[in-house]
């Protein structure tokens, strides 16, 4: 490692060690540091370009060095976390959907390899931030349990409209698998990466079809329903009313967790974090392409449980 890389790694490590970032996932921390560098470029550029740091380098060169160091360090933290999250997903439902035994371990391994490949791209890392946080913080678990207790719109959409003849735990696992597959829109072979991606992070339906075809070649053990769910979680529900309920639900969970912070202190007189977020999301559902009825139900759940 060159002296400059060492300096970049040391600088990034100090940033990552900031206590304010401690409760966040590695990808959230990475995003925070990227935003931090971007937001404070004017103040940081003269200092980091000085003799003590990276003399003679332009700001763009410095940022490239820092990004490289950042991704290296975050990957070291992310890999074990990702492995543990993937291991936590019960892929038994895949055998049921395929009507043949693929072996859960094989599915896990293929998804892990696929994700590690995708996460070398910055765009994929950004679109995986929320999904990964949703998995890390167990948000699927708590909401699916509540949805099953209520047996209302979302339950109906999952079991009757999407016709998932699976147990609650298997459906939960399928949603978790959908979340894992959300960065699939950055797969190679689907055209320009992120093509059709809009300000809201969603992709156009036609692009999603291309993504599906390209990803299918790499994730051969996954049933089409699961892969489609992962791809369609990036498509606006207003653009395609036939998106799977698992995809619609995953899109909400991933968006919710993009800036999620566990154990956040709620000011007196303020609504709870989930309730506030879902209330805002209900008003912006057209903008983000969410299913308003799912948001309504999740909002009621958050309100009832004080989340």
């Amino acid at each position: 490692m060159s002296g400059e890389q060492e300096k970049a790694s040391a600088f990034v490590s100090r940033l990552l060690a900031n206590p304010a970032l401690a409760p966040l996932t590695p990808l959230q921390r990475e995003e925070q540091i990227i935003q931090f560098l971007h937001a404070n470029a004017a103040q940081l550029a003269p200092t980091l370009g000085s003799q003590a740091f990276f003399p003679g380098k332009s700001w763009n060169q410095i940022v490239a060095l820092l990004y490289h160091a950042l991704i290296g360090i975050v990957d070291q933290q992310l890999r074990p976390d990702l492995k543990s999250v993937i291991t936590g997903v019960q892929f038994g439902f895949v055998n049921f959907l395929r009507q043949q035994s693929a072996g859960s371990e094989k599915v896990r391994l293929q998804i892990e390899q696929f994700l590690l490949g995708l996460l070398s791209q910055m765009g994929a890392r950004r679109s995986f931030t929320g999904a990964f946080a949703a998995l890390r913080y167990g948000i699927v678990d708590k909401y699916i349990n509540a949805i099953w207790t209520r047996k209302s719109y979302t339950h109906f959409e999952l079991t009757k409209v999407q016709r998932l003849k699976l147990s609650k735990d298997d459906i939960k696992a399928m949603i978790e698998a959908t979340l894992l597959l959300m960065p699939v829109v950055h797969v190679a072979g689907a055209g320009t990466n992120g093509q059709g991606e809009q300000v809201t992070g969603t992709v156009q339906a036609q692009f999603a079809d291309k993504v599906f075809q390209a990803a299918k070649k790499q994730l051969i053990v996954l049933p089409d329903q699961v892969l489609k769910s992962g791809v369609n979680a990036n498509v606006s529900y207003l653009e395609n009313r036939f998106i799977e309920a698992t995809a619609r639900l995953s899109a909400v969970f991933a968006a919710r967790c993009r800036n999620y912070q566990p154990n956040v202190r709620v000011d007196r007189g303020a609504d709870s974090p989930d309730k506030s977020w879902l209330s805002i999301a209900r008003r912006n559902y057209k903008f983000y392409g969410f299913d308003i009825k799912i948001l309504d139900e999740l909002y009621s759940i958050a309100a009832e449980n004080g989340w």
Partner: protein
Amino acid sequence: MNRTRAALENVVIIAIVLVLVQTFLEDLAVLANWTWDVRRVLMFTGFAFDIFFSIEFLSRLYVAFINRRTGVYFWYERGWIDLLASVPLLLLSSGPAVMAYWSGSATVVGFAGILNVLKVVKAIRIARILRLLRVLKIFARIRNTDSVMAQRHVAKISTISVAVVVVAVLLLTVVFGFANVPSLETDYQTRTLEILDRIEAAGSDASELETITSFEDSIVLVQRGGTTLFSRYTNEVLAHSFGPADYGFGERGTLRVFFDLRPVNQEQSSTNLMYFGVIVLVVVAYMVLYSPHFALTVSDPIHIMSRGMNEKGYNLEVKVPPLYKTDEVYKLSGLYNEVYLPLKDRTSGSDDTDVLDLKLDDIKDILNE
């Protein structure tokens, strides 16, 4: 300088707490017939506190004057309470009481007889209620809520309430005094004058005097030409239990009759304690009940909206209680929840700095290395 000022402010707070205890004990001592030795200590303590608070007021006024903010101090920083709760008490309450003790009651109040004694007692009584304003001084120094606005509003409303009670009692007492409305003092005055007439009429008839004194418990001592004709108590008891304000006398020629004023004082102390209790309860109620209500329904929603507008990553909605949803604050909160936050969320999607937990200050040490 700031440290000295903070230390002095702490001394003032301690003094206010102590003077409230002293005020309570002084009235309790009269009501419970505590010995004069104890009451004398309390009287001098009250005098010392009045001097202390008078000096405090004059100092604050002087500092305000040299800083050209006399008006601000007097009208907006409760200078008027500092004034009412200090100098008038020194001049009308504790000062006369201490003077009476040092001079002897007879020389101070005796020259004009029982009527003047009662008037002085009444004047002192009226002035004493000003002490209760000190409850406000301590209240002003208690930070019962984080919100400066809530604190100011609650302080304002409690000041108005307490000041109105105190001023109303003062004015009504004066008005009733001028209007000769029958009171315990006027009854007492009429009765003592009658007694004086009867004793004078009895002349040197010892049995008649015995009859009168056996029926009239208020008679403490009867003297004629310097000779004691009757004394209800021994000298030890008189020295132990009676203070200057506890008795008054009337005279006709060489006849001097000393009367027990303790029942009048006890009645007054009982009233004072009642006022004290009412005022303390009113202030505590504002602190305990109204202050949280104000914070919850006014300052908290404003605080949340202010954070939401100042901090990019703060997106918590204001909780709107259905009961108060028509309040202006909650109407505004509704707009904040329904219009501002969704708009902020949509526009922050393209903003890289939407939620930053990391601040430039956090890495000052790295940059300065």
